[in-house]
């Protein structure tokens, strides 16, 4: 699944780098800035610039309304991106999340229409865990690269959805729609859900053995294996968790839309966008380095950009151009830091 690069290359390259960084103040400051800090600095900068631009335009940027909007827009992507962070950290990735979100929204709406809310939630958890299990097993046991394995699973889900559904289906009871729309003060319930998911993932990564192993497997599978880590198991568990996150995002979207929608995942571009957010947050695409905090920053950065553009009523093509530039620039920045 992941690349098993030369083991010493990186390790032996660094001392030279250190030798050179010894002198000069700016250099030191530069290396002291890890990507997580960079993304939050960028977030602060975008908020400040956005505030000025919107003010010059005659509007008010940080109103309760926009803050709530930013949170609501980013909650679903944020939850998926947390799962994606785990997969990428472990040296894998998941392209099936978008279709899984659509599938989850339909499963939730159909089961809730026929039965109960808890039943719908349980069904979604079951289905998404199963998808994650398949992803993980195909990658580890059949030795298919994660890109292809999860792309294949994505196509399978797409086929099932296209066959069974022409449009929205099922109905979500009003009681469940509170999840999508309610808020406590300025904080939407969906944002709290995102915070909870991110908190759990952070806790797992920082405090549990599983988290240590995710870092090890993503850092170097061979080193991990020679240290007695059951690397396959780590990858499978990671994919189950990643898919669970997509399932939760599907639940959230079903509650917003009041029904299951077969295109909700792909319309939102959750597959590539979650990967972009993770990478923007400073997690290395090759794995082994990064974390949830950066991803949260990455998602917020994308959402704030969106919000600024919306308020300025910028052409949406231009919006995409800027997003593309921001993502590429951020990764180039991190790469530069690593080699300097």
């Amino acid at each position: 699944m992941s690349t098993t690069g030369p083991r010493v290359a990186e390790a032996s390259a660094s001392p030279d780098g250190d030798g050179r960084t010894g002198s000069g103040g700016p250099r030191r400051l530069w290396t002291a800035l890890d990507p997580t800090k960079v993304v939050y600095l960028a977030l602060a900068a975008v908020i400040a610039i956005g505030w000025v631009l919107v003010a010059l335009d005659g509007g008010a940027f940080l109103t309760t309304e926009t803050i709530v909007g930013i949170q609501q827009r980013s909650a679903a992507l944020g939850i998926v991106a947390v799962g994606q962070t785990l997969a990428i950290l472990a040296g894998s990735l998941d392209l099936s999340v978008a279709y899984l979100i659509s599938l989850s929204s339909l499963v939730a709406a159909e089961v809730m229409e026929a039965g109960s809310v808890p039943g719908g939630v349980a069904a979604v958890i079951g289905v998404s865990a199963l998808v994650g299990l398949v992803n993980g097993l195909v990658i580890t046991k059949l030795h298919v690269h994660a890109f292809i394995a999860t792309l294949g699973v994505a196509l399978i889900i797409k086929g099932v959805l296209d066959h069974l559904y022409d449009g929205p289906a099922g109905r979500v009871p009003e009681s469940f729609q509170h999840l999508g729309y309610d808020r406590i003060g300025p904080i939407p319930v969906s944002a709290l859900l995102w915070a909870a998911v991110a908190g759990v993932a952070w806790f797992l990564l920082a405090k549990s053995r599983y988290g240590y192993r995710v870092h090890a497997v993503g850092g170097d599978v061979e080193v991990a294996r020679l240290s007695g880590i059951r690397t396959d198991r780590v990858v499978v568990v990671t994919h189950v968790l990643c898919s669970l996150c997509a399932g939760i995002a599907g639940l959230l979207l079903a509650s917003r839309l009041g029904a299951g929608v077969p295109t909700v995942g792909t319309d939102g571009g959750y597959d590539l966008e979650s990967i972009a957010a993770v990478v923007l947050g400073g997690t290395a695409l090759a794995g082994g380095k990064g974390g949830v905090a950066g991803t949260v920053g990455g998602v917020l950065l994308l959402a704030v950009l969106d919000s600024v553009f919306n308020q300025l009523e910028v052409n949406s093509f231009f919006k995409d151009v800027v997003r593309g530039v921001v993502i590429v620039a951020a990764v180039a920045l991190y790469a530069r830091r690593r080699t300097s």
Partner: protein
Amino acid sequence: MDGKGRKSAESSRLLRMVGITKGFLGVRVLTGVDLDVAPGEVHAVVGENGAGKSTLMKILAGVHAPDDGTIEIDGRRVRFGHPLDAQRAGVAIIYQEFNLLPERSVAENVFLGREPSRRGLVDAAAMIRETGRLLAELGEDSFGPRDPVKRLSVAQQQVVEIVKALSLDARIVVMDEPTAALAEHEVELLHRLVRRLQDRGLAVLYISHRLREVFDLTSRVTVLKDGARVACLDTAATGPDELIRLMVGRDLGSYFPPRSSAAGEVRLSVTGGGNAHVHDISLELRAGEIVGLAGLQGSGRTELVKALFGAEPFTTGAMTPVRPRSVREGVAAGLGLVTEDRKAEGLALRQSVRDNALLVARAAGRRVPALTALLERVRLSPPRQEQEVRYLSGGNQQKVVLAKWLVMAPDVLLFDEPTRGVDVGAKAAIHDLMRSVAEEGTAILMISSELPELIGMSDRILVLRDGRLAGELPAGVSEEAIMHLAAGEEDS
């Protein structure tokens, strides 16, 4: 040591390997090798490149299973099916290539895969405390348990590997060429560490090419040659001359093409060339001569030819015709490099013979020449241009690499281990070809770890040691003379 003392020592052996035999794909790598070590002993394992040292150590570490022979630890027979089995039995091996995660901290690396936990959560405090304690025990205060490994020097990373071994309660520590990548002052620190391990009653197996440290550090030395143990000696009772004789002692039975008569004009010259790996290099290569380049692993041979070629350029010094700053400049100046690892660096394996042979010419924007005569000249058999090179034998692959450079009619050809992994017939063909290319006026510099090849082919031999030229030897010099110079033992 008298007979009685030896007897009691025999019974207290911590490790005993008996009759270890191992082959890969029908090629015998080790034949009936015995090795034993006592607690508190530092035991050297020496031998030429390819003598079987690494294979023997990998068998001890559970990476390979022996075809025959037994391993006993504390008198109990053990069988290792996986590196973890060896680890549990108290064997720790510190490879030249470290098994560390650069992005994680020292403590996280030391306890990788067996993190202490409290109530299901990783007990980071205990991990840091224990790592700190072991570091302190080793007298290491230049870094701490929380430092990320990527910030550490090679020597410090080695200390992390040693701490990892200690935290595993290892009793047998294998160190594979531990000083190959270290600077002089770091070597001293490492030796101090090894003595501490010895004081704690650990057995240390110390593989080294550097004879000086064998005599500084070890009490006994096992000499391997061509996969067999040729001697196990008390270090105090032997000397470098005897060790070198035991390591090389064989005849130059093979055939080499006759040497050329005279060297022509200077094709390449360097004065005071240096970069991060090699220092103060001054040399001249003349038309028509084959110059050998000798040196131990880690002495900077490959780095030197890559510097000449422009792949890892010199940062200081003067070079004529030019000091290439890139491969493109090197090629434009008439240089060619036949790399050590032809599969990774020499060939595009899934491309055809034709595409590979034209790789450099096309990259340089030369007109595409007719290949038929050239492929005949390098004696590619069969000379089929459309064949994918991955299906060729090692010898034929190397001929394609040669053709790739001969297309360019280079002034200087650099060879890094030209016949590694090549069968005997193809080897002779490559040797003949090298000589004929030289006679047409190309200057050749050739690295070889096979001393007979180096001696048989070279008109003169340059010897590298620790990234510097240690000296030059004339044609037909003895293997002992080369090893003396390469190992830095010329005075003792």
